[in-house]
């Protein structure tokens, strides 16, 4: 390479005192280059040894820094317990926000347009999940674009379950949900035509219901939670867009790995938004033939079905 003349000749710069001082970043390199000149007599093995030592030393330093940081932040050093503590924190947070009264101003009636082949099981799950806090008053209609041939036992079963009267202890705030079986490609929902545009995709209905629902079920309480659930929901959305088994396979594998051997998604102790989204789409894809999906998913689905009211 060309050698350049120094651009700046010796200059005295007044450094401001309000900033941190950093070590020269390139000191090692300079050192190295100096060494390489002097140590031309040293054997190659010795050089390598030197380098390794330096790296090990650096790693040690890094470890120390991290440990000290952990100490500062009051985090337990055992990684296995990290989750538990996290959960405890979450639970603490939940306890704090629990029983916040539902904001009735958000409970504008929603209309869900859906084709009978895309049964929105998630609404059923939410209805069951919220039953102590919010009444989902569901009415089911059939649009003239749908003929009788589009219905099967599953749709009828769903209709029966979702309009079934639930036993309520007290008078709860109610959200009116109108499900219309209609010839639409993507499930969509409309709240107020003069204020909002229609929202497309069942996953977004799930997000909406989660947000207007009781506060203890919010999934966006912290970034970790929000990210986790959003990722799962996005995978479900992708999955709903694929039309062949082959294309779906990788997403299903992903969902299976995410769940692992846990009882609920996100190692939670109760039904969460991810469980609802995943179960809703899997039930649609596999109907009643759960055997075709990965074993852990089918076990999980069977276990959560009573919680979701499927």
């Amino acid at each position, binding site marked *: 390479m060309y050698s350049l003349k120094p651009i700046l000749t010796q200059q005295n710069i007044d450094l401001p005192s309000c900033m941190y001082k950093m070590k020269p970043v390139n000191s090692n390199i300079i050192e190295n280059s100096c060494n390489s000149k002097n140590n031309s007599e040293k054997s190659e093995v010795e050089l390598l040894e030197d380098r390794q030592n330096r790296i090990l030393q650096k790693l040690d330093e890094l470890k120390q820094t991290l440990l000290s940081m952990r100490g500062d932040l009051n985090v337990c050093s055992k990684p296995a317990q990290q989750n538990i503590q996290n959960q405890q924190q979450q639970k603490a947070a939940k306890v704090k926000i629990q029983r916040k009264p539902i904001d009735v101003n958000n409970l504008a009636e929603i209309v869900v347009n859906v084709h009978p082949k895309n049964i929105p099981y998630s609404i059923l799950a939410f209805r069951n999940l919220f039953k102590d806090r919010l009444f989902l008053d569901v009415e089911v*209609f059939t649009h*003239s674009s749908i003929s009788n041939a589009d219905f099967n036992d599953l749709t009828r079963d769903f209709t029966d379950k979702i309009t079934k009267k639930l036993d309520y202890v007290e008078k709860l705030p109610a959200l009116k949900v109108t499900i219309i079986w209609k010839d639409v490609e993507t499930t969509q929902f409309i709240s*107020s035509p*003069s204020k909002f545009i229609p929202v497309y995709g069942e996953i977004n209905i799930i997000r909406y219901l989660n947000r207007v629902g009781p506060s203890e079920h919010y999934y966006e309480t912290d970034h970790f939670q929000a990210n986790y659930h959003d990722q799962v929901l996005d995978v479900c959305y992708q999955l709903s867009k694929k039309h062949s088994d082959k294309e779906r396979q990788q997403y299903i594998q992903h969902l299976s790995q995410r769940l692992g051997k846990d009882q609920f998604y996100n190692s939670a102790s109760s039904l969460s938004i991810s469980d609802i989204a995943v179960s809703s789409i899997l039930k649609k894809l596999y109907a009643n033939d759960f055997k075709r999906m990965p074993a852990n998913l089918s076990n999980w689905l069977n276990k959560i079905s009573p919680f979701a009211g499927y």
Partner: protein
Amino acid sequence: MVTEETAANSEAQSKKAAKKQAAKAEKAAKKAEHKATEHGTTENQDEASGEDYSKDKYGHCKMIQSAEKLSERNFVPVHQLGESLGTQSSVWVRGRIHTSRCKGKQCFIVLRQQSSTVQVLISVNENISKQMVKFSGSIPRESIVDIHANIIKVDQKIESCTEKDLELHAIEIYVVSQAKAQLPLQIEDAARPEKKDDPDSLNIRVNQDTRLDNRVLDLRTPANQAIFRLEAGVCKLFRDILANKGFVEIHTPKIISAASEGGANVFTVSYFKESAYLAQSPQLYKQMAIAADFDRVFTVGAVFRAEDSNTHRHLTEFVGLDLEMAFKYHYHEVLETIGNTFTEMFKGLRDNYANEITAVGQQYNVEPFKFLEPPLRLEFHQAVQMLREAGIEMDDEEDLSTPNEKLLGRLIKAKYDTDFYMLDKFPLAIRPFYTMPDPNNPKYSNSYDMFMRGEEILSGAQRIHDPEYLVERAKHHAIDISKIAAYIEAFRFGCPPHAGGGIGMERVVMLYLGLDNIRKTSMFPRDPKRLTP
């Protein structure tokens, strides 16, 4: 005196008169010429090309006076010609000349039969003379002809006819009933599709009054044929569906002694030495039938309204489809029955009258009718809420104005995508005195309206069946009790709780098809400005 004056006048305007006369003469000459050419074809044919060897195979039929039966003639409806193709060599067809085009040795006729059309070819050959071809070309449009012809399959589809795969090669042609050469309107113009976005299409239209003045011609268009067949379907379905639900059809008098609804807007007719009124609604009689233990009744019949409103949706005489039903404990039993009747009717129309609906759609650009099952039911306060969200300011107990009614229709269509819905629990203040108030909120009532494409088609309510309460409500409305004594009297011998409503057939058909004027769905409409035909 008079003659003198006219003479003076004529002298003064002699120049003008001369000109006028000249023009008249010219016109007359032209007319004569026209006539000559018209009749010339038949008169001059001998001179034209010698001997006419197919003399017996065409001509004007003697007026049919049922002299002979000619049962050997095998008549086939035009829309069934396709089935006869290949099985029968020659057939008879009776139809109207829709269009005809003569070109040298060939004559093309489009023969129309109700909504179906077929192309007929008459060309010179060993059996058909030039004179016969000429005669065929000269038959005025809309004349009725009998044609004996062979059915021939064509390779290239005939796009201008409903029978696209075949044409008729005529053997014989007789005029059964000739139409006037000059028609007040052309069927082609009257049937031209109203497609606004197509700049290439001809923009010749027949205006509504010309159509109605010449209704007989106008009704021959495919769209009108379809409209009135569908209208018949509405009546048939209404009757069938209600009969299945255990309703009994009744007939109510149309000449009545007192106004049934309110008092204004009634036609007065002289009745011997007194005057009587034309029935505005069969309501009182329906209710009396309920009081007489018919349980569920309906009636189809003329209803008269002396409203001087010249709008797209008002007629002074229309066909009312009314029903009344006794219920056990809640008027929603009735509301559900009426709602289901509509759903079944819409389904029946969608499934059994698809051809008619397409035929209308070819002329008038309309969106198919959409509905929900079970029908959507909203309460009045919800509707007010929706309108307020859209920026309309209105009172809780205010009636829906026509623009608000339409806006509400659009909002509901946007949200639920349905053209049919029911509004329940109207404010008591805006309903008639016989409407039962809501048990939970005295501001509202047990009354309902139904809407199609944002326009009201039915108005109904639970009626008060208790005579004492009825008197109380009537007094509240400051109604003279003596005038409605007969109505109140009807409930004195015990009457089950009941509710009902009525619809206008023409309006339902208009709104189902999405047409813009009720005169299109009344065969011979009556409005404040029209008493004929």
